[in-house]
Every structure is written in structure tokens, then in C-alpha cells.
């Protein structure tokens, strides 16, 4: 089953097209990435996919976990976003209530989805382990954990609520490189071991190359190239993709 299916998506602002994606499919256990620079329309495409934009400006067919985003009721959309499709953003702390301990936050979120008692505890434990978080951290407040821990907790929250697809907007841009590697490692594992689907939006080509199966390159609101990640990075066809790849400062090869 295709978890995210987009056809002929066009988003306008004041009559001007600011983002358009002809075809996008995310299957379980796969990671699709949208790369591009500021203003390329990549985040707009992500927001439209989740039905977070004013529908008057959005046309096209968008299906997420079987829900038709264009026609679904606000309630149906909220249910879809809360559980099966999770949004993970650049600064995880912004998504976490600052006055609540992480454990309480997780319990409340599960309760809102009708999961309580033993089942809630089991799910929380499983999700926290899946993101390699020390369960002791659940006693802390969001400001008492590091950025990487908060981001992994945000992912754990999604897993506990039963997310089948995570839509992530620059999930590691605010993190140190070592912490970033850890978060990416967690996402890769969830994809490989649990069949989680990922739709990743990022400006970081090197990061995308290390996790994505399929890549869409956007520029000025349009997709200029789309293909298997290995292919796009090894043999970019579009001149802009080539320019982007060439611009990435290269770290020299390690010598043994």
C-alpha cells in the first residue's frame, strides 16, 4: 500500500505557483526525500501533503494513509495527522509542551487516542527503546534534555501513536553532527526494521544521500529531477542538480 500518494499537486499564493509536485509516492519501508534551497517550495509541498495549508490555494490529488486530504473532514485529517502520519519538525522542543514531563506528555497523547493503562505503558516503553532513548529521561521536562534527545522523543511519540509514515522537515538541521548521525541512524533503523515510511524535506544533500531511497530535487517551486537516490547522486541529469551536488563542500577521504 502506498502511504503517501501525490498527483499533480499545485500550491498557489496570490495566483503565483509556489510549489508543484507532479508525482510522489512513499511506500512502507522506504524513504523519499525532497531537496532544494530556500524558496524552492519543498516545505510548502510537505505542508500541503498533510493538509495543513488553506485548501483554496491547493489543487491536485493527495492521499495519506488512505485518507483523501483534499476532501476529508477536518476531524478525519486531525486523526490521520495525530496517529498514522506524524510530522517531525526542525526544532523538536517547539512541539513539546514545556510544562510537562516527557513521560506525562507521552501518556496524555496516548490517552487522547484511547490508549491507556498497561497498553500505554507497553507502547511507550517500546517506542522509547526504538529510538535508543534512556527511559529515565521520561522524568525530565523538554528543556532538561538535549536537542537530539528531544528530537528522538518526538520520533518516539510518533511511533507510540502508531505512525506508519513520518513526514520530517529538516529534522537534523539544528543538531550537532554527531547527534545528527544518531537521529539519522534511528530513522534508518525504523525504516528497515519496522517498515516505517519517511518523507524527508531537507536542504542537506549529503544527509539525504545517506538515507533516501528516492529523491526529488526542487527549484523555484518545481521538481527539476526525480529518481532513485543512488542514480540522482551518481549521475544527476538536471544541470541544477549537478550544481547543487558540486556545491557541497567535500570532506577528503579518510586514510587508513
Amino acid at each position, binding site marked *: 500500500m502506498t502511504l503517501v500518494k501525490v498527483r499533480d499537486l499545485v500550491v498557489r499564493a496570490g495566483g503565483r505557483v509556489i510549489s508543484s509536485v507532479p508525482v510522489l509516492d512513499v511506500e512502507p519501508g522506504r524513504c523519499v526525500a525532497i531537496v532544494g534551497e530556500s524558496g524552492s517550495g519543498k516545505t510548502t509541498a510537505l505542508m500541503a501533503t498533510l493538509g495543513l495549508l488553506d485548501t483554496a490555494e491547493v489543487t491536485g490529488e493527495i492521499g495519506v494513509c488512505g485518507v483523501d486530504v483534499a476532501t476529508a473532514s477536518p476531524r478525519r485529517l486531525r486523526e490521520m495527522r495525530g496517529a498514522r502520519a506524524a510530522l517531525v519538525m526542525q526544532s523538536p522542543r517547539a512541539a513539546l509542551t514545556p510544562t510537562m514531563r516527557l513521560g506525562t506528555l507521552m501518556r496524555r497523547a496516548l490517552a487522547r487516542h484511547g490508549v491507556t493503562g498497561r497498553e500505554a505503558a507497553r507502547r511507550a516503553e517500546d517506542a522509547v527503546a526504538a529510538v*535508543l532513548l534512556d527511559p529515565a529521561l521520561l522524568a525530565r521536562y523538554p528543556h532538561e534534555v538535549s*536537542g537530539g534527545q528531544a528530537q528522538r522523543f518526538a520520533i518516539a511519540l510518533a511511533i507510540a501513536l502508531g505512525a506508519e509514515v513520518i513526514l520530517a522537515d529538516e529534522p537534523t538541521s539544528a543538531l550537532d*553532527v554527531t547527534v545528527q548521525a544518531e537521529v539519522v*541512524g534511528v530513522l534508518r533503523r525504523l525504516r528497515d526494521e519496522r517498515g516505517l515510511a519517511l518523507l524527508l524535506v531537507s536542504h542537506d544533500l*549529503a544527509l539525504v544521500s545517506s538515507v533516501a531511497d528516492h529523491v526529488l530535487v526542487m527549484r523555484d517551486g518545481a521538481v527539476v529531477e526525480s529518481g532513485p537516490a543512488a542514480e540522482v547522486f551518481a549521475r544527476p541529469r538536471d544541470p541544477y542538480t549537478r550544481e547543487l551536488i558540486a*556545491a557541497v563542500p567535500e*570532506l577528503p577521504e*579518510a586514510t587508513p
Partner: protein
Amino acid sequence: MTRSNPPDPSGLDEPSPSARTPGAGPGVRPGASPDSGGPGGRLCAEAVTLAYGRTTVVHEVGLTVEEGGVGLVGESGSGKTTLARALLGLLAPRSGRITYGGRDLAAMRRGERAGFRGAVQPVFQDGSDALDPRMRLGSSIAEALAAHHRLDRAARRARVAELLTDVGLDPELAARRPHEVSGGQRQRAAIARALAVEPRVLVLDEPTSALDVTVQARVLDLLEDLRAGRGLTYLLITHNLAVVDRLCRTCHVMFAGRVVESGPARELLTRPAHPYTLALRDAVPRIGGAPPRAAGRTDAVPAAEGCAFRLRCPLAVDRCRTQAPAPRPVQGRVVACHRAEEVLAGAARK
């Protein structure tokens, strides 16, 4: 104080630091010899300890900002930006000293201090930090000019146009305000403002991290051109090792307020001798390279006793728990690790 000085990485090729400055007493570090770094003199940190209130964030760090560029890398909280603030004269050391051209910043008189401020200029991550949001770019640059040079209005305007051209901007942009230009243009304008006072040293704190990759590449080109054209010296603070490789000949790696490895940048980045440098390197995603590796758990807080990195280190042994490793020369660098030779031999990857 001298005893506790970490070895100076600029003396790597020398048998011992004191051999470099004949006649200098044991209390004088080579980096402190006056004006050895060109017309403006060298910027040095000597056994600098920095603290905010009771929290010590930088412990006895020594480094020299020398020609060819010096990179300072490490994760959030490693103390690299705090050290940069001290080198800019914005934070007084708790102990140790910051010198410029051999003169202790703390002992400088007003006029000398003003000269230092002109000679050592910062460039931050976001150009808007250096630009007044209500001022036109031209006025921001002119303001910096006026602080250090007496120029009449026409000369000032001509100089602003020249500076904007130097950083690859259309002089017409002088009439714009910071929010009316792109991030890359803003960063160039901030660089132009820093250059207005004709500095010798630029302290670059993540100068390209907020920029798109193609813009970043052009700003890096600009920084290389400016260095060649104006004889500038750079201290680059960044988490991006590839940028260090591009702009710096020497690199210092900081962890938990201490320099854990120093040496020639290319050597350090391709063949790390400290497990933390190796972890940083292995964590960098590369196009067509091996997937990034998270070496050790980043959750572990720096250890208070012994080696601060030991709780994250794959090679930690009993000795690391009991004895903090002192910086020592190992194959062309200075490393604070008991097992540096084994790291170089590839032990940490097994």
C-alpha cells in the same frame, strides 16, 4: 602557569616549543613573540580558562591564530564560541591571557585597545547579527568606516561602494535594508562591514551554516579570495569539517572545554588520532560515502573525572577513568588521549 600550558600546535614541526625562539625564557611561548605573524601581529590564547559565574567552560586552552587559517571544531557546549568571544576581547579570561602582537589584551590602554578592535573583527552565522535592521546596508558599513577612519562624505560613499564590490555585491544594494536582501547578500554585507576597518584577523563563527549550499559555496570562494587579496588570517569556528578542510591549515578539536586534538587540518581530518575527532569525522554524511556513523552514545555527559570523553569512547580503559590524559605530541599533532597511537592504527573502528 607555563607548566600547565598545553603544547602549542604551531610548534609541531619543532623538537620543542622553546627551541623556536632562541633566547626566550621558559616562561615565553613562541606564539607570544611580538609581531611574528605579520604586520598586525598574532592573536594568541595562552592557557586561557573561561567561566560564566561558577561554571568553567574553557579549561587552559592555548592556540595561535596563524597564517593559513585555524579551524576550531566541536559540538554545542564544547566552548568554542566562548573561546572566540575571549579572542575578540569580549570576555576576560579567568586565568591565562589573550595576546595580540605579543601584547596582553588586559593590559592594553584605550588607544591600543581600539586598534585591536579594528584589527580583529567577527563575522557571525547570520549577517543580520552585524547589521542594524533599521539601517540601510550602506549606512551600516559607513558607520564602521567612521569609527576607524576620518573620511569626508563623498570619500565614505566611494569606499562603501568599493567594499560592496569587493564582496561581490552590486553597490546599488547600499540603499537596501537587511530584510530586503537575501541571506547570502546579507552575509556578504556583514563581511563588507567587517572589512571596512581593514582588519588583519577575521573570527568567523559558522559563517556559512545558515546559507543554502550554492550560496555557501560562493561565500567560501569569497573568503578564499579575500584572504589571498588582503592577507587576512582566519579563525574559523564551525561544526562543518569540510569547510575547515577548505579554509584552514591548522585545526583544533574541542570537547567539554578542552582542546583534545590539534594539528595540520588535512592530517587531522583524514586520519584522526583522538577518538572524538574520529567520531566527528565518521558522523559526517557524504555523497557517495559510507553512511554516517554515530560512534558511542551522544547522551553521555562529559565525565567529571579522568578523560571527559571516556563515557562515549569505544576505547576507554581503566586508566581513562582515573587519569585525565595530558596533551602530548603524537605523529605531528598534539593529542589528549592515552590511546592515540592505537586510534591512528585503526583500533577505534573495530
